């Protein structure tokens, strides 16, 4: 019997994998992808709840999340391109201009 909890745990796991990716990788593109993973985890959550409550609101918000993800990807990748054009790197450890 598959319950709500299964989905919640799954999404938690997926989310944490995303966090791990963000924490450990230095390739900023992969970091962005990890973020996408986290967003997906959130979506799974939302939809699981909407299924449980028999209410489409969760799905609506999943749509919004997807919108945000698209925007985030576009802008983030744009930034990455611009940065790469200037500094020839996508290593996040070399992107530390904002320091004292």
């Amino acid at each position, binding site marked *: 019997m*598959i*319950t*709500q*909890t*299964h*989905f*919640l*745990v*799954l999404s*938690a796991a*997926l989310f*944490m*994998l*995303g*966090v*791990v*990716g*963000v*924490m*450990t990788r*230095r*390739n900023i*593109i*992969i970091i962005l*992808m*990890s973020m*996408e*993973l986290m967003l*997906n985890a959130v*979506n*799974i959550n939302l939809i*699981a709840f*909407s*299924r*449980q409550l*028999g209410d*489409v*609101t969760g*799905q*609506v918000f999943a*749509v*919004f999340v*997807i*919108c*945000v993800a*698209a*925007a985030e*990807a*576009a*802008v983030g*990748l*744009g930034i*990455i*391109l*611009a940065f*790469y054009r200037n500094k*020839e790197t*996508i*290593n996040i*450890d070399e992107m530390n201009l904002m320091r004292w």
Partner: protein
Amino acid sequence: MAEAVVFYIFAALILGFAVLVITAKSTVHSVLFLVADFLCVAALYVVLQAPFLAVIQVMVYAGGIVVLYLFVVMLVNLKRPPELHADPRRLGRLGLVMALAVFAELAAIGAYGWLKPSGFDGSLDSKNIEQVGRALYTDYLVPFEVASVLLLVAMIGAIVLAKREQ
């Protein structure tokens, strides 16, 4: 029964692909794994009786966003491996540990059923699209419009950022 089987299969696939995504050496590979992961998630949506979301997931994520990643990966043809230089002050491992710890806690919460395990009572299969559409265009009209504006702004911003100024 069948649902359980499907769920476990896809859950395994999702997590497996996610692991591959964050561990793959070549960026292109991890992009591919990401696509696979998203497709599996879409399948999971179908299981959750949200076909519309599933299709949207495939269309927007797999068909759009990840393609964007692929493009960037190709445009960024690196002279040297990207993860060569590592900053000593970065506490990556600590981050890993913390993440695992948080997951452990969450898993504990789930496992001990402190959030009460409840089956799915609500049913919203047949008219899914109509429901979502109605919700989007009536109750959530303003957020919807805001989202569209957000996308527009993001588009313009991306163009401005990625355009090489001559």
